[in-house]
């Protein structure tokens, strides 16, 4: 009975989403506040029903109700409780339900917290959210219904894909979806602005928290997915330029551009039309990502099931929303008022440069991801566009971007002074040169690129800090005064510094890991010792263990440094009989910011077992940098103050910095 109620709740949610799509638009046309008020109550109601449906499905998983097909196909009674719950979205139907749940959540949040919005704008935003929601409810109910039942339920389920039986599944998809779907709010604001034909600095102020929120979640979601792939797939890699990863990177790049151009719009009332386009593009890329992953066009661990009708349905959704929004843009954008003017060397100019580089990088990834697919469809010729392509195209685009990052916050609005900014970055530049010299001396001119890249990372980090030092006067003024100034500094300034420094930190991790990681592959027997990067790794024994729903072969390694044992690592291989498949559980030892990584291979007939050992210097920085970026985003989000970009008069005023 509960399962059926969940099914019905989903149908009701669709019905409410349809009301939400139509009535507020009529209300906005007629100027009737009561009709427009329907938007808020229906989106809250819709959220309540889809939350109920999601709760019902979760309950079915928890109690192992195999009369629900979805539970039977993806769960197993012996699975630990946490994986029963995460298994809800570890499959196609459930993950789509999570998708609409988050969409409804954002609509409800706009309805509840958007009371400062003009009624017309809020109604239109919610109506557009309703369009998206209706499309996805239809998709779920017609092609991917998670509430189908079996009259004669089997006694045991088929279990979840073992690779997904990991804590990563509890974190990565919800975060990623919060990011993907969060950009729907920016999209809806953009469409609403186009329909209404009004746009200005206030619009940017209203849309800011939503974009930031989505961006923070997307950043964390991507970082978490990367870390999960790193420790679960057993290859020690953290980014594979896999189409599915690219599908999440593209909205991130576009979203980062959107974040920056929205700042220009809020503070200076400029770049308005471009910001609208970015908002549309960002969510379109999110939809494209959903399509690539969910339609079965790509085969990977993310593709739970491929069914042509689903692919066609999502493709239709994609065409309607992307095509429709771009057509609306082409029609309405010329009628929007243009914004203010600014000199090329100014904060605005720096942000335009940021936008240009980010969108170009995004386009590069787009081409690299879609070209092989299109080629295969047209000529059935299979090519693979992998790391070399992206390293050659993406890398050169990011170098100027990173070089420009520290300059941005130091330039004044409207009319900046590049020389003055460069002077303030002198210290950061010196630090970078020092790092370069030291590294060159240490590596003996072996690798040239790595020291240069590290110098760049140091420049970005110290540059971000110089901005803070400059604004608080930390080195010039008395400590008490600079502390007071630090406290008085807008949190968004802190956020900018953290996010920019995070970028440098991540770069540092990436360069060190790729340049100096050591790898050993060996077949060893108990008692053997393998050395990697100054550590001795001794295989103590190999034992079989019985888990709740798997058997595992656990190898116990002692890690020695200079003959002294410092830790024990136990990587394992798990065999899941319900699916007849196995997973590799790598073991990681974090020492400072570096990691020792052991993953097991196959056991051969003579009792020796093949192991892969990696030593990855500073690898933790990659994810730490991403978390720093997200933290910066949160800081900025917590800053509820209004942003004003005081324009710099033509006469240079050197005394004080403009406020953020």
């Amino acid at each position, binding site marked *: *009975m*509960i399962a*059926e*109620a969940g099914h*019905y*709740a989903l*149908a*009701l949610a*669709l*019905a409410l989403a*349809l*009301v939400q799509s139509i*009535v507020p638009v009529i209300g906005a046309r*007629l*100027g*009737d*506040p*009561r009709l427009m*008020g*329907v938007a*808020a*109550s*229906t989106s809250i*109601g819709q959220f309540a029903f889809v939350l109920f449906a999601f709760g019902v499905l979760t309950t*079915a998983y928890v*109690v*192992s109700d195999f*009369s629900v097909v979805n539970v039977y196909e993806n769960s197993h*009674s*012996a699975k630990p409780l946490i994986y029963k719950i995460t298994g809800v979205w570890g499959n196609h139907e459930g993950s789509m339900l999570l998708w609409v749940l988050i969409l409804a959540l954002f609509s409800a949040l706009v309805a509840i917290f958007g*009371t*400062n919005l*003009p009624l017309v704008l*809020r109604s239109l935003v919610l109506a557009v959210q309703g369009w998206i929601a209706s499309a996805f409810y239809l998709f779920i109910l017609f092609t991917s*219904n998670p*509430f189908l*039942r079996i*009259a004669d*339920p*089997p*006694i*045991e389920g088929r279990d979840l894909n073992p690779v997904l039986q990991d804590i990563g599944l509890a974190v990565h998809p919800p975060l990623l979806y919060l990011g993907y779907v969060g950009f729907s709010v920016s999209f809806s604001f953009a469409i609403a602005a186009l329909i209404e034909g009004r746009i*200005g600095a206030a619009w940017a102020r209203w849309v800011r928290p939503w974009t930031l929120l989505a961006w923070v979640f997307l950043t964390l979601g991507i970082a978490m997915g990367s870390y999960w792939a790193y420790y679960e797939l057993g290859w020690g890699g953290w980014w594979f330029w896999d189409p599915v990863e690219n599908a999440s990177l593209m909205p991130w790049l576009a979203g980062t551009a959107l974040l920056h151009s929205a700042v220009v719009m809020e503070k200076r*009332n400029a770049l308005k039309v471009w910001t609208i386009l970015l908002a549309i593009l960002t969510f379109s890329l999110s939809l494209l990502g959903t399509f690539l992953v969910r339609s079965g066009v790509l085969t990977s661990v993310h593709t739970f099931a491929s069914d042509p009708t689903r692919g066609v349905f999502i493709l239709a959704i994609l065409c309607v929303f992307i095509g429709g929004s771009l057509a609306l843009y082409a029609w309405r954008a010329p009628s929007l008022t243009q914004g*203010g003017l600014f000199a090329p060397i100014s904060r605005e100019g720096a942000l335009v440069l940021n936008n240009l580089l980010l969108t170009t990088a995004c386009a590069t990834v787009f081409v690299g991801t879609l070209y092989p697919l299109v080629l295969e469809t047209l000529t059935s010729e299979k090519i693979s566009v992998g790391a070399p392509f992206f390293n050659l195209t993406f890398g050169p685009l990011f170098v100027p971007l990173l070089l420009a990052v520290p300059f941005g916050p130091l330039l004044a609005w409207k009319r900046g002074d590049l020389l003055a900014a460069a002077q303030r970055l002198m210290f950061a530049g010196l630090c970078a040169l020092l790092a370069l010299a030291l590294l060159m001396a240490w590596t003996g001119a072996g690798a040239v690129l790595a020291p240069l890249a590290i110098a760049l990372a140091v420049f970005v980090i110290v540059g971000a800090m110089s901005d803070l030092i400059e604004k608080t006067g930390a080195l010039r003024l008395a400590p008490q005064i600079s502390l007071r100034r630090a406290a*008085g500094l807008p949190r968004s300034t802190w956020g900018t510094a953290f996010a920019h420094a995070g970028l440098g930190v991540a770069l540092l991790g990436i360069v060190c890991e790729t340049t100096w990681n050591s790898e050993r592959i060996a077949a060893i027997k108990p008692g053997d010792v393998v050395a990697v990067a100054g550590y001795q790794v001794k295989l103590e024994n190999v034992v079989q263990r*019985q888990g709740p729903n798997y058997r595992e072969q656990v190898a116990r390694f002692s890690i020695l440094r200079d003959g002294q044992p410092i830790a024990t690592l136990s990587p394992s291989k798990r065999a899941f*009989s*319900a699916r*007849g498949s196995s997973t590799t559980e790598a073991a990681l030892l974090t020492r400072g910011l570096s990691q020792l990584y052991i993953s097991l291979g196959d056991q051969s007939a003579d009792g020796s077992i093949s192991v892969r050992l990696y030593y990855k210097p500073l690898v933790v920085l990659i994810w730490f940098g991403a978390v720093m970026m997200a933290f910066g985003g949160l800081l900025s989000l917590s800053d509820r*103050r*209004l942003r*004003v970009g005081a*324009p*710099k*008069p033509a006469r240079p*005023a050197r*005394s*004080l*910095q403009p406020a953020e």
Partner: protein
Amino acid sequence: MSLWFVLALMTAAAVFAVLWPLGRSPRLRGGDEAAIYKDQLAEIARDQSAGLISAEDAAAAELEISRRLLSSAKADSDVPAASHLYVRRTVAVLALVGLPLLAGALYLRQGSPTLEDVPLAARATVPPASASLETLVAQVETHLEKNPKDGRGWEVLAPVLLKLGRADDAVRAWRNSLQYNGETAARRADLGEAIAAAAGGVITAEANTEFEHALALDPNEVKARHFTAVAAQQDGRSEQARAIWRDMLTKAPENAPWRPLVVRALAQLGGVAPELPGDVAAASKDMTPTQRAEMIGGMVERLATRLKQNGDDVEGWLRLVRAYLVLGQTDKAKQAIADARQATGNSPDRLRALNDALKDLGLEG
């Protein structure tokens, strides 16, 4: 609480979500742009007093924002506020009628309102006798999952898995049985059989190895010998296959249960079973016509059942059709032809072979 009651309550809540704002007197109109710009002006004043921006910067910013404030006030004033009773009533009626209808139709399309929830905890009480074979297999599998060293369990499970068509799992089960129960010729032969079944009936090199192992342990292991002959037949070494089968029949006791199978296999290769007093054909000589008809009927039925489970065997279908024709059961023969076409329909090659052979039999092509 019945399901319908719950659904009705939910519908009422959904309808209420639409009707409520329609009936309420309109609230204040939410925020507007002007409020943002006024706040921005206040912010500039604050920043200036905190010493974050200079006086001239502040003045320039104030000028810009005031300009925006003016233009927004102009835009806000030309939005008419109106009330449209007729439209509101239409929306209300649509919500009241359309919402339940739409949701109900969507739900009933795939919903199963008569099915109860079946959480696992509620199902452990089902008595074993009434449990289906698959349920029992699942229970044994769960047991073995936790006690993988229970050799007897694997031994019992393996043949059942093979019967259920889960040949891959049967292979694994036999391997485990071999590991925990020790090696015997019979287990080796069973493993080989399962491997062959997993390969769609083809005696692969892997399967053959198992049969060789079995024969090394016991040269007279029947199953291993039979499958060695089948392997020979599949390789085109018909003479060798015939020799093995003939030898098996010669050595076998009269009442060996596998005798008919081997005789049939031999007959299929065009070989004649060695004349033995205990031969099936000979036995049938002493039967009354009724008994003989029963025996033949039984054989035909067995063939039909086998083909129902595995319809890929074109030769088998032809034999079945021929048998029905000989028995004078034309209806059943026609039915068998239809079944055969359906069963082989997914493979054009087999279907063509079947049609050609039927033509040869003088039946419709």
